[in-house]
Structures are given as C-alpha cells and as structure tokens.
C-alpha cells in the first residue's frame, strides 16, 4: 500500500512538473467563461477587436494586487485601440477562499473594472494556455477566426514600484502589434503566486 501511495505521489509530482501550454506563435483557443455579472464571455463576442490582453489574475495574490491598477490602465489605454483586457481568475476558491466569485465581484466593483473578470471554474483555460502564476499575461492577435499568441509573460519588469518600471513588456508588445512590427521580447518571466490548482 505504501509503495502504491509513493508511486502515485511520484506520478502526481511528475505531472505537475510537466508544464504544457502555449508557446508564442500558437493558436489560442476561445473560451466561454462566466463574468462577474453572471453573463458568459467569449473572445468571439468582440467583433471589432484586433486582439486581446488576456490576464490570468486573482483577488488574493500580492502581485495581482500590485498590478491591479496597471491592468486597469492597460484596458483604458488599449481597449479603444482594439486590444481589450480580459481578466480570468483560475484559482480554486477551496484552496484560497479570497479567490471566490463574490470577492471577485466586490473587487471589480470597488475598482470599477472596465473589462470582464471571468471565472475559470474548471481551470481548463488556464491549463490549456499554460498559465502558471498570477498575474500571467497572454497577448493574442486576431487573424481571421484565429487568435495567435504573440506574447507570454509579465506586465512589466517591476512589480514593486510602477514608477520605477524600465520595460513595459505588455505595452511594448501591443504597440508593436498595432504598428505591424515584431514583438520583442516575446516572453518574459516574473515571480508570482502559483495558480491554486484543484487537488
């Protein structure tokens, strides 16, 4: 019995270690997820969008909180240019109670979110995209009916202090896409809270 338990623990450890998900250049799948107003939201709903800034984020994580105002600013700057923000909370509220739906609604209301804040209750979208932490950004560009992954990573290079940022990775990526230029860098890393997967 002990042996079986150890083997299954090893398999679980191995599986959680294998990080799959999208690479830059891949086609991203659309989703149909519940917004804080109870309505379902898909990328296909945005007929005029040129692309999307998809942000996996949550309520409780200090990094998500540190970036909240910057996520709001991204939507304010880019929604009208054709790249709206779609925020998705992938965390299991059974792991962190603060990440529940009601608290999502409260945060969105308190901060007057001008973008959808969706709940990925099955965690399928986070898994498919390969999101691992919050906040984790995927910039997508619409190409016909496809959504191409153009950038994966951090919002900028300084979570601590928005005024000390040197590289605004997401802004640069979207600016380049709008100008028809190549995105560089196409992926970055940052410290963040690991996504709280269902056990």
């Amino acid at each position, binding site marked *: 019995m002990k042996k079986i338990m150890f083997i299954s*623990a090893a398999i679980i450890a191995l599986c959680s270690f294998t990080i799959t998900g999208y690479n830059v250049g891949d086609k991203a799948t659309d989703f149909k997820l519940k917004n804080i107003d109870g309505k379902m939201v898909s990328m296909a709903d945005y007929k005029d969008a040129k692309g999307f800034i998809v942000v996996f984020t949550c309520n409780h994580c200090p990094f998500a909180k540190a970036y909240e105002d910057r996520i709001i600013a991204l939507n304010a700057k880019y929604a009208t240019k054709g790249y709206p923000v779609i925020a998705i909370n992938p965390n299991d509220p059974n792991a962190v109670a603060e990440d529940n739906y009601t608290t999502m609604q409260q945060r969105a209301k308190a901060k007057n979110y001008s973008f959808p804040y969706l709940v990925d209750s099955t965690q399928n979208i986070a898994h498919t995209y390969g999101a691992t*932490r919050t906040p984790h950004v995927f910039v997508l560009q619409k190409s016909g009916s496809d959504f191409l992954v153009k950038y994966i990573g951090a919002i900028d290079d300084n979570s601590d202090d928005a005024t000390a940022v040197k590289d605004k990775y997401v802004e640069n990526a979207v600016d380049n896409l709008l100008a028809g230029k190549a995105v560089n860098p196409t992926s970055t890393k940052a410290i963040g809270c*690991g996504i709280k997967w269902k056990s």
Partner: protein
Amino acid sequence: MSIKKACILLLFPVLLISNKVTVVNFEQLQNYAANKNNDTLYVVNFWATWCDPCVKELPAFQQESKKYAANKVKIIYVSLNSGKELNKVQDFVDSHKLGPPVLLLSGDNPNVWINKVDTSWSGAIPATVMYKSGKKVYFREGDFTSESLDKIIQSKNK
C-alpha cells in the same frame, strides 16, 4: 539604571537569538550557494510570507536542517517578498525561528535571474534549487512534503 544601560541589557539577548534577514541582489545570492565549490549540498528555497504553500513546507526544510546538521547540508531561505516588506519578513523569521541564513532577494530584474536559476522555472513559488561542488544538481517548481524533501536530499547528499 541609565536608559542606555537598559537598552543594551534588553538588546543583548535579542541580538543573540535573532537571525537578521540580509537583503541581497542575485549576484550576492550566488555566492551563498551556486558559487561554493565544496562538497556541501546547498539547498536554496525560494519562498515568501504571503505564499501559503511556501510557508506550509518551511518546517520540512527546518527539519532537514536539523537532521543533516553534521552532514554537510546547508539550507538557504530566500524570501521573494517585496524589499518594502523587510520588517514583515524579519518578524516572520523571528517568530518561526527560520534559518540562518535568511536572505531577501531584491533589486534585480526577475526576467533575467529566474532563468539563471533554472530555465524551466516559470517564476511561481515555492521553488527549490540545490547545488553541490559549484554545480546545480536539482531544481523543482512546487512544494515538498517532509518525505519527498528528505528523499531528494538523501539522494543528492551521497
């Protein structure tokens, strides 16, 4: 008693028992483990006070530290709290009797140093890297149980 004397008397035991958190940049961190060219196994654990799974697994590291105290295993706790939270980290270290050493990594661009720790690391914590003789011998993004940590340390400490 003079105030000065009272302060010294009060401070002295605090200085003796407290383990002061040291703020380091990435290059300085490397000198604690990655650049040590000897047969000690250096286990570097990246954590933060706000990270629940990190806090949960810390006792496992403390246990290992005691178990292998005489066996050339050195645990290095690296907090990734914001540099503004030094006091918070110090309070945590004092109340949990963590380390030494406990370092707070601050100031450098994570997009650069995360890959230097391990290219497979997404940046989520907890994460643990081990070095021996100046070489990386193990990396893991994710948490440990006491058993799984002990097993790895045993196998790397041969």
